[in-house]
């Protein structure tokens, strides 16, 4: 039987191929019950395989909660059924894609998902309804075009985002693209980013005044700056830390007004270490770095980071990436050409007014392909890839507003590009306007969704698009963003009109509502957050949007008053009055439509809300190391079975080294998984101290490792290797036991200290 693994073996980078094989083995081990649920959940999350609504096998169908009778009762995480479909999040660093990658994305959506590619607010692509067994092949096909899904979810560094027009922008200091790329790959899989209590988001912006990079809402944000140092212009970044949305939004705090480009990677590494060491691990609601900074203060945080920076072992990559930065360039496929003749097509002009941006490079423009709800079909994706090939080459970016930007389009080609986009249903005007509504997945697929953000977004999009031309320009330019719950994935805090899902009890029934957040600032990198006012029933939100926008138009103080300023001046009290006009819910008997959500006729219920996986499972690095050791041990067994004794011997030894390395790194995190480094450290820290000793067997299990390490004259016979396999298993067990003892000891010490205090 042909397999993708075999077919693509020469096209995948070896490291990615190996990682995916490892994941496939982990899937196999999980099926055999050899990995526990929590650990496997975090493992798959770190490979981008996320849970989806109803994956606990329960669904409220509008009448009652019913069981979904999947073929097996196997699980892929706590309360998560193996057979339940999940979501695959595909990280696209800085949103940069090429045509070949777009083609593959289209194929994957068609074959494993539902033929829809969904662009997210973090420049990712998400595919829904994916079976976990399909994920290794899906990842291989991505790897073959240079995309990894590693660490797309879970408690790690999420997709590194950047302005989609960076490099062609008229306002930027310089192109942040190569920096964001370097940061993404430096932090990807870095040992210092593996032990976070929560996710960590990084963004780059080319300037301070515009919105694009949204550094203010990030755990770590970089704004490009130039500075004269000794008469020479130097590149660097204004660096911010501790921003974040979620239930409790925090604005990022300035860390340093100028970090030279040579320092951004080591500082990010130092921050990662401090976060891993001091960040909250138990209470996930307070585990983001913003809470740590809030607790200890920015000055103390800065001090800790700089102290950590001082002791970091040197890494060539900190500055090595600068060669790539200098070499970075994008190649247009067409010569620059301005559009000099008029185009007598009103629709083209409407589109041109909102979806085109003139690049700083004369004769070129960017084209924003506005995607309703961030969705496009597989067919559209392929056609768009062709349009890109023809007009702009591989210069395509996803945006945090869930659109796609084609860069380096010759201005003279715009009429032709418009026609081709129109032909494939992608010439929707109004990018970044009131009907280009942004929405998170909400109750459609998210386990935490409370109200149907996509249902509401679809409804608003449809209604507002038809009336767009009649709106005053002040209204046309407003932004609407919707989240299905307070977690803010729809970035509602930054919108002129933001909404997030909540529920209310009325007459003993539950009614979907949206809480209203008004006057957020998109500009200035998401400069300030909106004012939270009351909640309106889901079904009244469109009417509320009409009312508040009409009021703004009628009562603003001159044309200069922005919506944001109007909301500030208008104040909560007045806003409440407007809100109250819409807040009443008629009894069910009078109007049952209030009791179901947009585009979901089931009687509304919140019983489907599950435990979110956004937070991932808090699994420490040692757990992964021990799991890795188990996997290697398993592979060694297979190699032994296949008669490949030398390989089995080496793999088994590596399994012991990895397990020992995991323990060593509890005390010294800089030790790599190399036998020559691990074994002496292990001897010193765990054997000589007796920490590894078993109550009955003493240091016997550790000696298995030492004996194999010192045996330079190995014989690779079936029996000898079988013996080593048995020793390896005992050694890994002893490592687990040692880890458990250390955890219990630490907890007993904590308790004793608390008692004493």
């Amino acid at each position: 039987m042909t397999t993708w693994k075999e077919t693509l073996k020469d096209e995948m980078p070896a490291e990615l191929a190996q990682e995916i094989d490892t994941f496939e083995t982990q899937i196999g081990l999980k099926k055999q019950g050899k990995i526990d649920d929590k650990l496997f959940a975090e493992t798959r999350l770190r490979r981008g395989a996320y849970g989806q609504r109803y994956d606990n096998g329960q669904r409220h169908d509008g009448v009652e909660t019913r069981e979904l009778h999947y073929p097996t009762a196997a699980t892929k995480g706590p309360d998560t059924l193996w057979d339940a479909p999940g979501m695959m999040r595909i990280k696209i660093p800085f949103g940069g894609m090429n045509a070949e990658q777009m083609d593959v994305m289209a194929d994957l959506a068609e074959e494993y998902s539902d033929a829809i590619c969904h662009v997210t607010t973090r420049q990712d692509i998400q595919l829904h309804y994916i079976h976990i067994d399909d994920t290794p092949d899906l990842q291989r096909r991505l790897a073959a075009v240079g995309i990894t899904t590693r660490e797309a979810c879970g408690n790690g560094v999420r997709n590194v985002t950047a302005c989609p027009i960076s490099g062609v922008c008229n306002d930027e200091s310089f192109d942040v693209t190569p920096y964001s790329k370097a940061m993404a790959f430096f932090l990807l899989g870095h040992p210092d980013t593996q032990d976070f209590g929560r996710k960590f988001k990084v963004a780059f912006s080319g300037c301070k005044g515009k919105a694009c990079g949204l550094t203010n809402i990030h755990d770590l944000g970089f704004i490009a700056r130039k500075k004269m140092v000794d008469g020479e212009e130097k590149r660097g970044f204004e660096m911010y830390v501790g921003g974040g949305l979620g239930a409790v939004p925090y604005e990022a705090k300035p860390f340093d007004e100028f970090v030279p480009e040579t320092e951004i990677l080591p500082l990010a590494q130092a921050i990662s270490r401090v976060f891993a060491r001091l960040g909250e691990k138990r209470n996930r609601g307070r585990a983001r770095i913003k809470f740590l900074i809030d607790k200890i203060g920015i000055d103390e945080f800065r001090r800790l980071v700089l102290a950590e920076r001082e002791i970091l072992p040197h890494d060539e990559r900190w500055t090595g990436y600068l060669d790539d930065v200098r070499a970075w360039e994008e190649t247009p496929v067409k010569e620059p050409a301005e559009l000099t003749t008029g185009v007598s097509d009103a629709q083209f002009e409407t589109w041109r007014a909102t979806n085109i941006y003139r690049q700083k490079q004369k004769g070129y423009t960017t084209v924003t392909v506005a995607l309703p709800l961030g969705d496009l079909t597989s067919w559209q994706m392929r056609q768009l890839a062709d349009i890109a090939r023809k007009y702009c080459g591989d210069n395509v970016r996803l945006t945090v507003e869930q659109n796609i930007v084609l860069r380096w389009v010759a201005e003279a080609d715009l009429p032709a590009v418009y026609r081709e986009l129109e032909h494939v249903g992608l010439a929707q005007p109004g990018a970044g306007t009131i009907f280009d509504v942004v929405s998170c997945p909400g109750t459609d697929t998210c386990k935490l969704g409370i109200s149907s953000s996509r249902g509401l977004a679809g409804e608003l999009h449809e209604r507002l698009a038809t009336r767009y031309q009649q709106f005053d320009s002040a209204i046309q330019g407003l932004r609407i963003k919707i989240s299905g719950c307070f977690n803010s994935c729809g970035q509602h805090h930054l919108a002129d009109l933001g909404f997030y899902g909540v529920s209310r009890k009325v007459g003993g029934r539950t009614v979907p509502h949206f809480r209203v957040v008004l006057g957020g600032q998109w500009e200035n990198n998401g400069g300030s957050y909106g004012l939270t006012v009351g909640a309106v029933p889901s079904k009244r939100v469109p009417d509320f949007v009409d009312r508040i926008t009409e009021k703004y138009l009628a009562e603003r103080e001159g044309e200069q008053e922005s919506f944001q300023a109007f909301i500030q001046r208008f104040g909560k009290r007045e806003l409440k009055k407007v809100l109250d006009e819409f807040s009443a819910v008629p009894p069910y008997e009078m109007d049952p439509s209030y009791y179901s959500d947009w585009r979901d006729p089931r009687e509304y219920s919140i019983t489907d809300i599950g435990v979110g996986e956004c937070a991932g499972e808090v699994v420490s690095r040692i757990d992964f190391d021990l799991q890795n050791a188990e996997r290697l041990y398993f592979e060694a067994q297979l190699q032994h079975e296949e008669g490949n004794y030398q390989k089995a011997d080496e793999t088994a030894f590596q399994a012991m080294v990895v397990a020992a390395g995991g323990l060593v790194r509890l005390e010294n995190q800089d030790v790599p998984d190399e036998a020559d480094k691990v074994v002496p450290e292990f001897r010193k820290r765990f054997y000589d101290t007796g920490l590894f000793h078993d109550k009955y067997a003493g240091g016997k299990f550790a000696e298995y490792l030492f004996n194999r390490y010192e045996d330079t004259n190995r014989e690779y016979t079936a029996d000898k290797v079988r013996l080593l396999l048995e020793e390896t298993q005992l050694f890994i067990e002893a490592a687990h036991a040692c880890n458990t003892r250390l955890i219990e000891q630490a907890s007993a010490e904590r308790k004793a200290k608390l008692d004493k205090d």
Partner: protein
Amino acid sequence: MITDLHRIGIKFLTARGDDIPLTDFIPIFHAWIQEGKLEDVMIDVAEYSHVPAGPGTMLIAHEGNYAIDETGNRRGFVYYSKQEVSGDNLADRLAVVCRKNLAACKLLEAEDTFKDRLAFDFGRIEIFFNDRLNGPNSDETWQAFEPVLKSFMARLYPNTDFEARYETGDPRERFSVSVSLQDDAASAEDLLARL
């Protein structure tokens, strides 16, 4: 190898009902889930009326996806499998997929909401493979599939001539064959009886 294919899809084009808003199918599919109307493990409804020529309104099941679909700007009812399908050979598996689709079409045509407004033309069929590894969009796949199609059609429409059209077109697109009958098409019920 097409013998390894399991990700198979069948679409029956509409005879009428292209003007029914896609959103009108949402409550129907939810009701089917409530009432357990289909044999698959039905999970949820996904709605894509906002994308043109897209998968329309879908009923997502564990075994595969059902949809009132507008791919290619041709409305029809589609079912495609996403899991292993029972059957010793491809023709048998095709029959399983077809049976599931017909069962859904029959239900849909009988829905009061769509009375006299919706009908499928079971003589206009599209068969596709959602598997570029085992069934790429190529002449070789067509050559291998043609006899399978004949044996499947002999079961679905015995002694009836049909025309099968395969065009590679864009090789990136999934492999797809259009089948049309020379004679009048049968009803879903009759076809189900033959499978």
